[in-house]
């Protein structure tokens, strides 16, 4: 089997296309690169969708956390505390067990029966947990940024007669985003890193369709040699991280484009890793 044949056989194995059986002996470097890269599709899927959906929820929660009424503020506080105070690993387990408890036959809402079996599958259940988790972490970041908007900006808005929704949309929100962006970049990077936990935390890999680390672990178990598959997975993630930094850096430059160049906030990596 040439390398190109391996690529065509396994490139989309993680999605269920191509060769059904995983290689069992005579492992080649090419197989490891292809399969681990194929698994990376799932990491990108989880990361991108959770990040995009989480962004909107995070904005809402950050706003709720600044609200004056305790009826709005307290739930936001508790949501953030719940997801930031406990390990993501436990959250995955808990969510999986909770989703398992849903009635197997589906729930009857009025006259339509809603299927429930798909919720225990990783693509839905784990994505949901990651979405809530990143929303909580990002909400904390956005809340901190909302609090540190310069007082002068808000006073200037008042002086111009900008108030209410217009003030939020044109002054507060852009400034919040600009201030929060370096921290939010870190959050995005570590969200992508934590997607590797999915297939190690209760959610089964249906028909051995797993993520990059799932396949790396498969090879390490089979060959009993960790020195090849894990560095390959690490290499893929370094590339992914660099891409993310580039993308978020471009957005950061756009957010800061009206400022003198020396005032732009540099993006610094801070470990925020395992949740």
């Amino acid at each position, binding site marked *: 089997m040439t390398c190109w044949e391996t690529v065509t056989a396994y490139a989309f194995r993680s999605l269920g296309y191509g060769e059904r059986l995983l290689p069992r*002996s005579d492992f080649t470097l090419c197989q490891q690169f292809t399969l681990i890269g194929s698994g990376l599709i799932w990491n990108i899927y989880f990361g991108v969708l959770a990040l995009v959906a989480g962004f909107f929820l995070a904005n809402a929660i950050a706003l709720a956390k600044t609200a004056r009424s305790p009826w709005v503020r307290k739930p936001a506080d508790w949501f953030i*505390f*719940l997801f930031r*105070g*406990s*390990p*993501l*690993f*436990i*959250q995955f*387990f*808990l969510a999986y*067990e*909770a989703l*398992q*408890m849903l009635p197997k036959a589906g729930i009857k809402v009025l006259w339509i029966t809603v299927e429930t079996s798909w919720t225990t599958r990783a693509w839905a259940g784990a994505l949901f947990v990651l979405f809530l988790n990143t929303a909580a972490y990002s909400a904390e970041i956005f809340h901190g940024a909302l609090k540190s908007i310069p007082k002068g900006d808000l006073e200037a808005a008042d002086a111009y007669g900008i108030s209410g929704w217009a003030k939020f949309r044109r002054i507060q929100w852009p400034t919040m985003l600009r201030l929060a962006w370096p921290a939010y970049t870190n959050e995005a990077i570590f969200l*992508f*890193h*934590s997607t*590797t*936990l999915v297939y*190690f935390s209760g959610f089964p890999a249906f028909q051995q369709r797993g993520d990059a*680390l799932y396949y*790396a*672990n498969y090879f*390490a178990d*089979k*060959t*009993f*040699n*960790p*020195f090849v598959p*894990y560095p390959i*997975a*690490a290499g893929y*993630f*370094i590339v992914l*991280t*660099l891409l993310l930094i580039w993308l978020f850096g471009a957005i950061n430059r756009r957010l800061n484009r009206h400022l003198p160049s020396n005032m732009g906030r540099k993006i610094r*990596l*801070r*470990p*925020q*890793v*395992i*949740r």
Partner: protein
Amino acid sequence: MFAYCADPKSLEGLAWLACYLTTGKHMGLYWSFGTVLLLLAITAPVALAFGFVGAMAARSPFLPARIIGKGYTAMVRGVPDIVFFLFFVIALDQGIEWLNHQIRCPDWTEPIRQGLEFRVCPQAKVPLGSSPQYVHQLYGFGLAVMTFSLVFGAFAANVLYGAMQAVPRAQLETAEAYGMNHAQVFRRILVPQMWVYALPGLSNLWMILIKATPLLFLLGVQDIVYWARELGGAKTSAYEYPHPDWRLYYFLFLLVFYLGFTKLSEIVLDRLTARLSRGQATAAGEAMRKAGA
């Protein structure tokens, strides 16, 4: 545990629960909380030491040491740490056995990697195949502690390196003007002052470390996640205490444990920060002075 637990099938209600929660296996669960705390107690200082050495190496004027130090601090940035967890456990194990093999069996001729196997001579096995079960468990735990320390040492090195850079330059220059050499400046001026800059990062790291402890499960240690899965799974009537699938409740209990633990740490660390900021020339210290005046 209790005398009336002799025949669990006849029990009901609270008595049943009391007996159920004090079975030998549940004791295993309670002890595993000790395992988690022990891991934290050992890992935190060891990782701090690794981080300190790493940060020192990254600042060293000697190029190879600087490259190693910078490489160590950079390694956790681009790669998910769980990759390191899975990697180091096997890599350390094989590394130790390989070294042992070189020492004990110098005239062993067969290759160590035979196809899909890693085979060292029987005397070089760590721990020896004949050693009792608890030695194997202890060795597994030791490997896990080492892995955690290596990974978190890299994070700590990041934080400490930043803190060392944050100490005002003028302080160090003044010390040099007084005729101190490099080692003296480092020991007497830099290290005592850097802690207040390092504390926010280190307390963040402590929270991350707490939340990383369930990963012990992935390293093959019988920790709380292992027991929660073991005990929570549905038990048929063949067991002494039959019950349906209760894993949800066990994991809920773990969640509450972690929430309480992180909350407690947060309170303690806030107090510590306040304590360390008192009288410091930082914004927090200044705010405290104004509040007091």
